């Protein structure tokens, strides 16, 4: 705590004091009324500028005088104006889109690449994602994220991702500030994010700033659209496997708006007529749906309220009437955020959010009179406030707190046979924990060339009762014991300092060098059994056995823009050290949670990762896109795995190349293409075999010492936009008149896996026949998932 006070004091000294007047306000899109975040505003005379925060608010303090300002946001017409700043001025700025029809390639401030202090941070434009090839026609923002250097796909068609050698649980995925614990549908093949409801997203791979915490490797911050404040609009799409519909508009013009967006798959409905009613499997099926909704209200210039929510579910049902066997597996997320933006004065802005987030997995099975259910999940109640303070144009200060109450259900069973209950719902094992953090950061210009971002976050985690710890006795199983903790009693307490640092030194207008360092803690963990992310994976908290995961990352980069910011390029190198990582014990078969704790099956170790990422991006012109290449190495060391020897992480990939491009031929046609190449995943396979007591035994090589064949794939797409103008012959005059169509629509044609590459999903050893009969054959088999898959989607808007 002392250090925090020290840093605070330091900042206050640095903040220059003097007679200043302030220009502040919000920057909005004139047509929809939605706020534009990260817009740049520049004062010509003072040669200084700032950018709006994530809620569209900006503030710039200058000596009294008359100044000329320029406001710039890519895809919008620049505005310039002159203003007399003899006293504080509040000014809301409306920007007009350059061309409504044109594909808008949004970006952060065009020279943000070289000017900002952010490292390893990339913003992705949703409109651009929509013209890229889509897997089975489903636009998926998480799959686009995987095309960035340093971000790797968890597997074929999978939305899961790994960032810079970190595990899949080390990514903080936020939807309107609510944590999304399981971001995928259907075994990871689709993400839970419906692109129609999303306005923007940003991923931070490296030095995440102090306002983010709780995960080691990355932050994926996704913002939902606010809804149009001016007019009603409806948009949607019909795809091969799902349909979408979005409705948005004002509740009260310029004051309040709403958006509601829904999506549902319909494979189950489509195939239903083809399954005869007497078929034993009649009634089996799978579907998922999501619903996003948001309402906003602007009380005044000083206060705004947002209420947004997400609700999504996957439901898998399996019925076998013949055996009277039924299974139902529902799982899904629900999040809700209530946000209040308040402006204390021209320089101090606060956003306070109350968040509810819930992930739930259930497995319900019944056979005759026997019923069985398994339940696991996590629920968070979260309250946070984030302050933005603009003492002078040189400083951009943020500070705030975050408090979360976690309720974990690691996995609980209930079983019943007729009237006999074996395990009761009331016995559901729950684990409770408090998590909190305080942070402070300042992003400031030291000199014209040097900009620093210093931050400090202090996090704390407390597991509280009621809780029962089962202690297995290694020497005498009869001496196994239990320790009971009462309600509210501290089971375990952890806390840790999380300093953050990043700096940018401008070499000239188009190039800079950046350095970053971050030290952070993660208190919640995901134990995965299978290499694919499954809904059966269990979240659990830090405990006496499970220490918080700790990460220290340093990175350095060279950033350069070419041809007046047409091309952005960067090279970043990083080294990451991770402690207290988690794996299941060798040979452990995580069994029921009855009379045991999940963490009794775990083992702990450490890891490191280093690599270099090369990135070049073109964001303007007819041809846009990027190429990213990563060279990296990710290793793990666990005392109880691989006899303590270091081994490659499952997602250690030496080479990872991805290229994404879209080409706008004309107003009608836009083409997209994507290519990815990655070193095969590390696997452990039997390398030899032998016979013992007449049975075949395997001799496995070192953990993850073998490689699957390399993964590569190309996808292409074409989007056809219908002509927004229709020509009509005027019956009276006989002249041809042009009329705007009420409905705009487009067709997206995609081909996934263009050259039909059989990429390995997993590899296993197939043992066939009988050794005694001499018919035994042993072979390695590779299972691949998706062959060439064409798809078509029709999207409309009016």
């Amino acid at each position, binding site marked *: 705590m002392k250090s925090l006070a020290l840093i605070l004091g330091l900042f206050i000294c640095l903040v220059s004091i003097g007679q200043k007047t302030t220009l502040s306000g919000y920057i909005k899109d004139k047509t929809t009324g939605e706020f534009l975040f990260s817009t740049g505003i520049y004062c010509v005379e003072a040669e200084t500028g700032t950018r709006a925060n994530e809620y569209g608010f900006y503030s710039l303090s200058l000596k009294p005088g008359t100044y000329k300002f320029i406001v710039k946001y890519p895809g919008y017409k620049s505005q310039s104006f002159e203003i007399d700043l003899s006293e504080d001025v509040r000014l809301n700025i409306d920007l007009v889109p350059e061309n409504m029809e044109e594909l808008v390639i949004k970006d952060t401030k065009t020279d943000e690449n070289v000017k900002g202090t952010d490292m390893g941070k990339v913003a992705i434009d949703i409109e651009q994602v929509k013209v890229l090839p889509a897997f089975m026609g489903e636009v998926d923002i998480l799959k686009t994220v995987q095309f960035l250097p340093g971000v790797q796909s968890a597997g074929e068609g999978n939305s899961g991702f790994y960032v810079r050698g970190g595990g899949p649980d080390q990514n903080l995925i936020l939807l309107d500030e609510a944590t999304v614990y399981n971001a995928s549908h259907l075994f990871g093949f689709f993400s839970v994010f419906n692109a129609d409801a999303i306005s923007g997203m940003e991923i931070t791979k490296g030095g995440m700033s102090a306002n983010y915490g709780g995960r080691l490797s990355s932050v994926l911050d996704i913002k939902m659209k606010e809804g149009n404040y001016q007019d009603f609009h409806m948009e949607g799409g019909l795809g091969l496997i799902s349909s979408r519909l979005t409705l948005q508009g004002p509740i009260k013009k310029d004051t309040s708006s709403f958006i509601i967006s829904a999506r549902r798959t319909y494979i189950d409905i489509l195939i239903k007529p083809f399954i005869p009613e007497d078929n034993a499997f009649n009634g089996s099926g799978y579907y998922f749906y999501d619903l996003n909704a948001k309402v906003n209200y602007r009380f005044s210039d000083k206060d705004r309220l947002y209420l947004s929510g997400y609700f999504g579910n996957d439901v898998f049902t399996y019925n076998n009437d013949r055996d009277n066997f039924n299974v139902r597996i529902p799982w899904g997320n629900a999040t809700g955020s209530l946000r209040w933006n308040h402006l204390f004065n021209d320089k101090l802005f606060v956003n306070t959010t109350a968040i509810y987030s819930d992930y739930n997995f259930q497995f319900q099975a019944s056979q005759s009179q026997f019923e069985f259910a398994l339940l696991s999940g996590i629920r968070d109640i979260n309250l946070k406030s984030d302050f933005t303070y603009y003492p002078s144009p040189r400083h951009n200060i943020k500070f705030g707190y975050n408090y979360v109450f976690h309720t974990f259900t690691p996995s609980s069973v209930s079983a019943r046979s007729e009237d006999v209950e074996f395990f009761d719902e009331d016995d559901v094992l729950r684990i409770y924990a408090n998590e909190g953090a305080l942070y402070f950061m300042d992003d400031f210009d030291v000199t014209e060339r040097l900009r620093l971002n210093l931050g400090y976050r202090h996090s704390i985690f407390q597991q509280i009762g009621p809780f029962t710890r089962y202690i297995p006795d290694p020497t005498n199983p009869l001496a196994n014991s239990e320790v009971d903790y009462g309600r509210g009693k501290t089971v375990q307490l952890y806390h840790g300092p999380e300093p953050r640092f990043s700096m940018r030194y401008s070499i000239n207008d188009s190039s800079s060098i950046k350095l970053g360092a971050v030290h952070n803690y993660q208190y919640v963990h995901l134990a995965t059994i299978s290499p694919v992310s499954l809904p059966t994976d269990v979240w659990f908290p830090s405990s006496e056995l499970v220490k918080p995961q700790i990460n220290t990352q340093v990175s350095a980069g060279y950033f350069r823009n070419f041809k007046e910011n047409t091309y952005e390029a960067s090279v970043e190198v990083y080294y990451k050290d991770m402690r207290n990582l988690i794996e299941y014990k060798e040979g452990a078969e995580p069994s029921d949670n009855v009379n045991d704790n999940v963490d009794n099956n775990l083992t702990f170790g450490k890891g490191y990762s280093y690599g270099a990422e090369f990135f070049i991006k073109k964001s303007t012109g007819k041809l846009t896109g990027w190429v990213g290449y990563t060279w990296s190495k990710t290793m793990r060391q666990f005392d109880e795995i691989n006899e303590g020897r270091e081994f490659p992480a499952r997602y250690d990939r030496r080479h990872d190349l991805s290229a994404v491009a879209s080409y706008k031929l004309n107003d009608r046609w836009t083409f997209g293409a994507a290519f990815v190449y990655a070193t095969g995943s590390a696997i452990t396979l039997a390398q030899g075999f032998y016979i*013992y007591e*007449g049975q075949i035994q395997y001799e496995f090589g070192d953990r993850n010492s073998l490689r699957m064949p390399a993964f590569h794939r190309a996808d292409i797409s074409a989007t056809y936009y219908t002509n927004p103008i229709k020509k009509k012959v005027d019956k009276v005059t006989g002249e041809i008149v042009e009329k705007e169509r009420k409905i705009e629509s487009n067709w997206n044609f995609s081909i996934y896996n263009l050259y039909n590459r059989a990429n390995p999903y997993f590899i296993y050893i197939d043992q066939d026949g009988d050794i005694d009969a001499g018919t035994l054959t042993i072979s390695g088999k590779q299972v691949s998932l998706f062959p060439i898959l064409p798809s078509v989607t029709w999207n409309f808007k009016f």
Partner: protein
Amino acid sequence: MRLLLTYTFIVLSLAMVSCEKEISIDIPQYDSKIVVDGRIEQGLPPIVFLSRSYEFFGETDLTQIQNDHVSGATVVVSNGTVTDTLLELCTQSLPPGIDTLVAEFLGVDVSDLALFNICAYVGTDLAIFGEVGKSYSLTIDYENTQYTSTTRIPELVALDSVWWEKNESGSTPTTDYGFSWAILSDPDTLSNAYRWYARRLNVDQNGDEKDPQFLLPFGAQFDDEFINNQTFEFAYERPNSENDGPDDKRGYYREGDTVVIKFCSIEFAVCEYLRSAETQALNAGSPFASPANNPTNIEGGALGLWAGYGVTYDTLIAE
């Protein structure tokens, strides 16, 4: 349970979309290892089979693998006072007495022994024959490499009683069939471990033995982690036999069966190996199974097990 769920998920989801192909994987030079299958029971000579391990994706001849024998090794067993160099013998020329033992060990008929040309290293000095409570060291010298191990024949723990019980309750009640039951009193020492073999003495209508040798049921070995110093009842299913006829219900003994139970005390380390080996045989290369090697007790880079068995016999008549 969770593993089962994982299986269910993967299987169900892949069933629809996946395709499969055979591949060969580039394995950086595999070095074949010596595989030891050695055992010693009280009153019997030590027997050690030596074979080799094979490269997974290499060219292999199965018949050759089955009859594989590493010849020319020097195999020495010592109980601390007596040291015996084992004699290399082959099935076609086995002394009487040893042939039945070997046949049982291999799970073949004595008469079939000659069909295989199987060889083993066998102790011939009576003074090295197994004794309860003694430890036996094993030293194998082969091609300038030495492999060593030690095992012990644990104190005998006899079953208190064995019986057959009709399966009259449960989901599929039967009156003619049932499991074998036993009561065991585990001593107050930790890490006791056991192995259960069973063999029906009955013959089928052709006069063939239903079980030509002792067979292992599912989960044949267990330790006393949860049962230390307790007296408890437990049941085993009947091990599967190749000679099962239509009247033999899988897993059950039929009324009228006469069964010899061979109940062995084994060391904990031996139990762990046997358990791991059973799991591996069942998993048969499943991609979801944990890739763990069998925990061998042989030092020096060999695979396999050197195991001492303290054997007691019981007879169970299904009536």
